[in-house]
């Protein structure tokens, strides 16, 4: 019988917590950015597009270091957050969520944007002629139609968050019970002699969690597609 050790439970719990919040908090921004990129044309759009996609091509360590500089206790934004709201991101699980969110953001935006571009604008026009305002049209027509893509974006973001290592360890370090997620715990184990078996167990857990996420997304996407096809 495969029972989890307290260390494994803690790492798994942290990983899920961090990934959940990374995706949940960035999803509205992801939809917003996707909408801006898909629907608006403005000078400097290529630059905005580039900035959003930057974490995809940068070494995660660079992103983590950047976050430390900006959001750390003495960073420009970090100091402000701490002094005014009492929020500390550096070396906390919330910081880990932020790091994961930044790294996963481009993947999420890409998937959602693709789905949005696939929505027939004629349907939105039809909704408008039926007396539906633009905001309501987005909620009742556009969003339901792009739901499969949003779902894909969420799962991609979640999976990427689960596997986040470089930015996280740079920004929030390796603190047991606070920022030691599965990949970080695994890395720590590989650095000590005799940690092989424990490391292997964490590997298996990671694979199982990632695989479950993929299966769940496939299942949900099929259900949504089936709904559209009637």
């Amino acid at each position, binding site marked *: 019988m495969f029972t989890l050790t307290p260390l494994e439970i803690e790492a798994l719990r942290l990983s899920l917590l961090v990934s959940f919040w990374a995706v949940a908090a960035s999803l509205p921004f992801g939809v917003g950015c996707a909408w801006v990129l898909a629907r608006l044309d403005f000078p400097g759009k290529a630059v905005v597009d580039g900035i959003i996609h930057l974490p995809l091509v940068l070494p995660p360590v660079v992103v983590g270091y950047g976050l430390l500089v900006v959001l750390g206790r003495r960073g420009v934004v970090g100091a402000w957050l701490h002094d005014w709201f009492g929020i500390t991101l550096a070396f906390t699980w919330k910081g880990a969520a932020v790091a994961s969110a930044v790294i996963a953001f481009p993947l999420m935006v890409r998937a959602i944007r693709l789905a949005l571009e696939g929505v027939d604008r*004629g349907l939105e*026009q039809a909704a*408008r*002629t039926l*007396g539906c305002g633009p905001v309501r049209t987005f909620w009742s027509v556009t969003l339901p*139609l792009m739901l499969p893509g949003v779902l894909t974006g969420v799962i991609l973001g979640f999976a990427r968050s689960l596997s986040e290592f470089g930015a996280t360890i740079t920004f929030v370090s390796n603190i047991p019970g606070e920022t030691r997620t599965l990949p970080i715990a695994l890395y720590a184990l590989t650095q000590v002699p005799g940690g092989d078996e424990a490391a292997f167990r964490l590997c298996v857990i990671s694979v199982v969690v990632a695989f479950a996420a993929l299966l769940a997304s496939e299942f949900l996407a099929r259900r949504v597609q089936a*709904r559209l*096809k*009637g």
Partner: protein
Amino acid sequence: MLELDVRRRQGDFNLDVRLSAGPGVTALYGRSGSGKTSVINMVAGLARPDEGVIRVDGRMLFDSRAGIDLAPEARRLGYVFQEHRLFPHLSVRGNLEFGERLLPGSERTQSFDKVVQLLGIEHLLDRRPARLSGGEKQRVAIGRALLASPRILLMDEPLAALDPARKAELLPFIAQLARQFGVPILYVSHSMDEVLRLADTLALMDGGAVAASGPLESLMGDPGLRPLTGRYEAGAVIAAVVAGHDAGFGISRLAFDGGTLIVGRSELAVGAKVRVRIHARDVAIAIEAPERVSIRNVLPASVVSVAAADAFLVDVVLACGATRLWVQITALAQAQLNLMPGMRVHALIKALTIARGDVASVD
């Protein structure tokens, strides 16, 4: 009542359209590229005129001078698109109720049950659009637009994407709409068959402008408008009533202002109002009434106008009672008969030249 006076530049193309559409069906007819869809989109608020006014029932929808430009959702117009544009994530019922739900009960002028029943879509209510046939989809789209209680129903070639069988299935529904639901319809089409079947008023579009508009019969019988109504279609359209059938000989009699017309057997009930298309090439002119002739329709008439259509063809307009008949004869025939306005003549029309497709019910 729709009143429209707008200008819009689209690339190299200039639209300059003045149009008014009253009760019944107003058809906007023209070749593709003549600007018909742009006009309907401007009315709906999906395209913006550069300048001008659009008014419906006295309510200003667009006025460039006063800076009025109502959003599409504030215009209260129904729009039936060429492609059905049903919402795939909603059931037929969900689609039908989409616009209705956004209206307060006091502003709803159409009843759900009546619309559903008249369009014959009761049995489809729980289905998704993906599982409907093309004709069913378009019927649902019409119902959806109607249930938004529009002041005008805009239809942009709603039959163009359907095969001939589906077209024939849907035409009677559309023909009934304006009368049954009291909604004026602006109907865009490039099919003369549909226009003849549906329209009360005709507006001919050409090169981004309305070249002529008026009652369908008077426009269709005007040889001067032939370049716009189409060469193949040359002919008059006359209003008549089915007066009787003769099953023994397989003929029907149609009464019109100017006499009685004998045509091939029609399936329509006695008393039905019909519209008959008489092709200009199928009518002959005789100075004196011929005796012992096979032609069943010999109608006394007087010549209204004579004009050369081209080098070898002459357009003659005859008045037969209050009805205008358009006749095409060869230049040779004209040289021998020397027809002149005011002359008393006889119009000869073979019963067999008026096919079943030329007689359309307008009830």
